[in-house]
């Protein structure tokens, strides 16, 4: 089971990449007593039957591992949301991509910790392939607000397969997440 909200989001991003997405948008907002998050992509999308099956932990599309009969990423997320009293919406259609939107109560005892937002952005941008990923982050109470695009980061540091580039990219992303001076 995933530990943090950032783990759930990375899992959805990995689904998007495997669904052939060219552009993925990840949004994480802490405001009005909620942790609101979304992952949107322009991948192959799912029809109504596949959307329903994706909620079943004992189903996977079989494209990667033909004999595998479990697919736990989405069931983990839905389980955690149900347990914590969260809300979610899944919009998807073949050929028009997938959009996940979900929210956890920020102060819920069963709400997972937010996790490492800079690490999420870095891992989400470090999969193979020539896709665009936009990470939008906002936490007004802590003065955090930033948007970073994978293309801009790769343009600045080079391929995100090099330890030097990854170290610099992480330092950059961590500096975006730092609270503004004077705000605790």
């Amino acid at each position, binding site marked *: *089971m*995933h*530990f943090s909200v950032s*783990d759930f989001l*990375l*899992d959805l991003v*990995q689904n998007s990449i*495997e669904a052939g997405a060219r552009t993925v948008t990840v949004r994480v907002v802490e405001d009005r007593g909620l942790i609101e998050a979304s992952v949107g992509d322009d991948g192959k999308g799912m029809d109504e039957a596949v959307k329903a099956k994706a909620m079943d932990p004992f189903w996977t599309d079989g494209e*990667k*591992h*033909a*004999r*595998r*009969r479990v*697919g*736990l*990423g989405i069931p*983990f997320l839905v389980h955690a949301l149900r347990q914590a009293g969260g809300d979610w919406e899944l919009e998807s259609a073949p050929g028009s991509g997938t959009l996940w939107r979900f929210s956890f109560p920020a102060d819920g005892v069963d709400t997972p910790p937010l996790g*490492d937002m800079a*690490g999420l952005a870095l*891992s989400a941008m*470090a*999969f*193979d392939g020539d896709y665009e990923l936009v990470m939008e982050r906002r936490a007004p109470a802590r003065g955090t607000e*930033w948007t970073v695009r994978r293309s*801009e*980061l790769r*343009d*600045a*540091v*080079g391929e995100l*397969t*090099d*330890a*030097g*580039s*990854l*170290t*610099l*990219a*992480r*330092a*950059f992303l961590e*500096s*975006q997440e*730092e609270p503004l*001076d004077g705000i605790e």
Partner: protein
Amino acid sequence: MAKMTLDQLRKLREEKKGDMVRREVEGKEIQIIVGMGTCGIAAGAKEAFDAIVQTVDENGIASSVVIRQTGCMGLCHVEPTVEVVMPGMPATIYGRVDAEVARQIVRRHVVEKNLVENHIYDRPAVDIVKK
């Protein structure tokens, strides 16, 4: 701490690039691949990934190492998993790789060319083996 700008990041990259060229070793391609599927994420693959990046950088071998993320490698029962492919060593899949084991993989396998014992796995889970 102030937010770093993309221009500042570019400048840092240029400074570091010169340093990396001076420390370049052998020039052969070494690949370290971290399984970042549902099973890997749940087991702590992000910590393993971070430790690999840090240790590769600290050992001055970044210019010859490619670090990649992939999905499930089929060893869900021993996640996190890390595959190392490099000249002069057998392609090796390590399992149960926490941050400390990840550091050992870089130091012992990649730098010293010795296998890291008790973490080597070579077969995916039985439910995905093709007959």
